[in-house]
């Protein structure tokens, strides 16, 4: 080791080490006495030391900001203007909240040391500032990078009554409460760039004709085109091309094998002409054994009700079912009820066919369900019903990862366009569940990166 090199290393040691984390700052936008300033006393819970309702809510927001901040790298602070305020409610439903990029920027020249933006392309504010290394101010009265608003009335009478926020930050919410941290993390994700942005996913139209930074990575596997190369009508069609719109970014696809589980399928052994089809394991009941289940698939009538195929009533002839796999249709009652009826009749597994286009990922909770269950498409279910009884194998497909096509993770693109959900989320066929799916699920951690989640990798693909 030369003295010169040692001296250089010593200088490196003495220089201030630039902080790699971004500052994500929650700006309290509420007036005194309400929202984040609600003085109602509260008992510290789940690692949240706040002693008022307002303090606890703010602590959760700041924890979410911390989690994102430790992952993001930027020299520019990210201001999140936040409100904790009454939003629309009924006794059984409520708007929980929302967040989004407060501004999108295009064609901003970088500061010294910054990076040029792709020309004529919209970037979410926080990302544009990270790349260009400058605070881009379009309106001095609205300098925030992210906008956020959440419902302060949750759980109060008339507002999802009795099911309020859980303010702990330990992912340990009781079943009667909603984990504020999970929802805020998800929404902040949108605000930081997990969104197709100003491009309308419904019509395909672009704001001022510029694409968003997402479009270069959005691939339609049917047409082989990326969104950036499509016309408006093509983008609108792609947004409805169920299961065939994927995120083709390199960083996200790199971590697919370490993040997503193997796929699940129903393979018809006899008649073999039916082949196999993708299935989605239910979120309740046991997981499929490694070897899966091999048995006859039957589709007997249940005890009546609106449909004899939906499994919502007990099966009157359990002898037809014992030891077999039962096929049922989605509808009328909870998935757990169907599967429990099949189980009570002696079934070894349950297969539920969707009643609309697309895959079916069944959720619910019933600890007394002890047989595995999977969801399949409506089309495959109809074919199975015609063929029943059939010999099937329900098990893993080790050639694909759940929620992927060509090893690219799917984006949510249901045939029936879902405003607010379509495109700007991972598809629901991903297993395990991802933070940025359109439904916020029980099994989420507070991690945004692999091996728990693909979300961070997608953000890296757009420049984070």
């Amino acid at each position, binding site marked *: 080791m030369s003295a010169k090199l040692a001296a250089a290393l*010593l200088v*490196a*040691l003495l220089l201030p080490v630039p*902080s*790699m984390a971004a500052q994500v700052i929650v700006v*309290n*936008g509420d007036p005194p006495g309400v929202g984040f300033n609600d003085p109602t006393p509260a008992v510290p819970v789940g690692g949240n030391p706040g002693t008022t309702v307002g303090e606890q809510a*703010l*602590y959760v927001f700041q924890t979410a900001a*911390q*989690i994102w901040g*430790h992952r993001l790298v930027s020299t520019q602070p990210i201001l999140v*203007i936040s409100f904790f305020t009454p939003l*629309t409610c*009924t006794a*059984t*439903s*409520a*708007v929980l*909240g*929302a967040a*989004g990029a407060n*501004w999108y920027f*295009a*064609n901003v020249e970088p500061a010294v040391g910054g990076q040029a933006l792709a020309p004529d392309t919209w970037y979410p504010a926080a990302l544009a500032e990270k790349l260009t290394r400058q605070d*881009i101010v*379009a*309106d001095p009265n609205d300098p*925030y990078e992210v906008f956020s608003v959440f419902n302060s009335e949750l759980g109060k009478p008339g507002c*999802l009554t009795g*099911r309020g926020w859980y303010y702990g*930050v330990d992912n340990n919410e009781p079943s009667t409460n*909603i984990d504020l941290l999970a*929802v805020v993390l998800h929404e902040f994700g*949108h605000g930081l760039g997990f969104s197709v942005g*100003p491009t309308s996913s419904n019509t395909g139209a672009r704001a*001022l004709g510029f694409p968003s930074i997402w479009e270069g990575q959005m691939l339609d596997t049917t047409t082989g085109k990326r969104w950036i190369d499509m016309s408006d009508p093509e983008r609108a069609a792609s947004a409805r091309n169920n299961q065939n719109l994927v995120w083709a970014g390199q960083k996200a696809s790199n971590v697919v094998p370490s993040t997503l589980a193997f796929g699940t399928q129903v393979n018809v052994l006899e008649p073999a002409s039916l082949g196999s089809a993708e299935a989605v394991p239910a*979120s309740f009941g046991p997981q499929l054994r490694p070897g899966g289940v091999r048995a006859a698939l039957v589709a007997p009538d249940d005890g009546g009700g609106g449909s004899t195929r939906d499994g919502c009533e007990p099966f009157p002839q359990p002898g037809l079912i014992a030891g077999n796999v039962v096929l049922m249709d989605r*509808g009328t*009652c*909870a998935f757990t009820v169907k599967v429990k009826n099949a189980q009570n009749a002696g079934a070894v597994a349950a297969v539920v066919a*969707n009643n609309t*286009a*697309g*895959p079916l*990922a*069944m*959720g619910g*909770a019933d600890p007394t369900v002890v047989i595995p269950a999977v969801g399949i498409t409506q089309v495959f279910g109809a074919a199975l019903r015609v063929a029943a009884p059939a010999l099937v194998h329900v098990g893993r497909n080790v050639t694909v990862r759940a929620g992927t096509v060509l090893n690219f993770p799917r984006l949510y693109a*249901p045939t*029936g366009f*879902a*405003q607010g*959900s379509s495109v*700007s989320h991972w598809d*629901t066929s991903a297993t395990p569940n991802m933070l940025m799916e*359109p*439904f*916020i*699920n029980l099994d989420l951690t507070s991690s945004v990166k692999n091996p728990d989640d693909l979300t961070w990798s997608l953000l890296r693909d757009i420049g984070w």
Partner: protein
Amino acid sequence: MRYPVILMALALPLLTVADRSPALMDARAAEAVAPMPQVSARYAPEQLQRLRQSLVAQIAVRDDAEGVRAATDQEAAALGAPVSSVSEAVALPGGGMALRTDASQLSLAVAEVVDDGHVRISERAPDTGAHRSTVKGGAHVR
């Protein structure tokens, strides 16, 4: 003694980004969130009112079957008003363009009690009554 100094010099920058143990994260989080920030009303009252109004078009209603269906026009009207979907474009002084987002680009997290008594959390836009295909939402409940 030369080698330990060199090793430290190499290791310190790595430590700043690599140590993300839960304990350290917790400590950092605790340090960063206390004390609580001061109150600051950053929006003018009318501006905040406009934002709030843009977020009131929650449109799904609970159904006895699987939990949720699209609201009828009357129900949607009762739950909230539709919003503008016109974003505001601004020319930046130093060159470039800015687009101020509006509520049409937000997706709302919405919670509903489904028929088995659980709460389902899903996302939807504030300005539509379109029913979403409830793929996982049919049951991925909280």
